[in-house]
């Protein structure tokens, strides 16, 4: 009697891809750690903020004047699409002496995850209204690092929202000054750093590192989509979770045989939107490197 295998190799690949990309998004993407993420299938998300509430202190009299509580007419709109695609021809798959689908899958995952991260971080940097200019040399000058971090803290401290934690995102070339600052500050902290390598935190501020070339100038390109950025020479920091990026239903995969070509065409795509909400935009700091 013939048996039917209901889990085809394609189904297994689809399951594997989905698991791999979700894992990559959680582990590798800085944006997921500093923004709120909405994965529901919404095209628009309304501002979650209402008008600021004001408490009146008065002598005991038992009367009050109610103010209107209004919502803000502000929305996040999902308007950008991330697509990575490729064709694995039959002869390539047959004659490869390694698992071509696995390798292609890993490459696609890395490509799309990096693109999303870059896009969100640049929007965050662009839309933050907090501003700070570093001393000359930026993060690469050791003596500047504690000065910069303490200035970021001073711009965000005191707000209840700051309890979400603070962060700064730097490029790998900035690390020279940061590492030396860590290794020469304090006693136990410096010893730990010298033994274990780069700490993820300094003065209570989480440090995230992205590759050089993440913060760029771009206008409606295949990197920025519908957005325009002027972020070359800038970094971003501030309070976590005061902006939202929408990623409706995550990434979708399609694997198809196409006419006239052997093998399979693979496409992976996702929709993304970003919004730095106005009432908290000053808690996202656009850092200018001097």
């Amino acid at each position, binding site marked *: 009697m013939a048996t039917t295998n209901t889990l085809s190799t394609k189904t297994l690949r689809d399951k594997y891809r989905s698991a791999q990309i979700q894992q990559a998004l959680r582990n590798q993407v800085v944006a997921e750690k500093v923004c709120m993420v909405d994965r529901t299938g919404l095209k628009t998300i309304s501002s979650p903020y209402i008008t600021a509430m004001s408490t009146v202190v008065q002598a005991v009299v038992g009367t009050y004047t109610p103010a209107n509580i209004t919502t803000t007419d502000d929305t996040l709109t999902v308007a950008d699409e991330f697509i990575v695609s490729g064709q694995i021809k039959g002869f390539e798959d047959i004659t490869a002496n390694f698992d071509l689908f696995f390798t292609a899958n890993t490459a696609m995952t890395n490509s799309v995850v990096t693109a999303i991260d870059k896009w969100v971080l640049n929007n965050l940097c*662009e839309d933050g*209204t907090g*501003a700070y200019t570093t001393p000359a040399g930026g993060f690469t000058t050791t003596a500047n690092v504690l000065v910069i971090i303490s200035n970021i803290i001073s711009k965000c401290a005191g707000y209840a929202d700051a309890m979400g934690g603070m962060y700064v995102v730097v490029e790998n070339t900035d690390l020279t000054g940061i590492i030396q600052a860590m290794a020469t500050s304090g006693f136990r902290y410096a010893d730990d750093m010298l033994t274990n390598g780069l700490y993820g935190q300094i003065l209570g501020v989480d440090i995230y590192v992205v590759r050089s070339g993440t913060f760029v*100038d*771009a*206008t*409606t390109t295949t990197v920025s989509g519908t957005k*325009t950025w*002027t972020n*070359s*020479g800038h970094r971003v920091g501030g309070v976590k979770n005061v902006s939202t990026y929408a990623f409706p239903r995550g990434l979708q995969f399609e694997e198809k045989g196409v006419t006239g070509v052997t093998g399979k065409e693979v496409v992976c795509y996702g929709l993304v939107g970003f919004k730095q909400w106005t009432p908290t935009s000053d808690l996202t700091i656009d850092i*200018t490197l001097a």
Partner: protein
Amino acid sequence: MAKEKEEREEVSQAKADFMHLIEVYKAQNPAKYELKKDELQRKLEAIA
């Protein structure tokens, strides 16, 4: 000569692209443009 001409054209194109970026940025984000206009001008002049 041909190489020099090609390089001049590349610089000219890069400047035109950056000027376009500034115009789009000015239209899309006028408040931030005001803050960054000096920096953008320096970046434009640095393209050479």
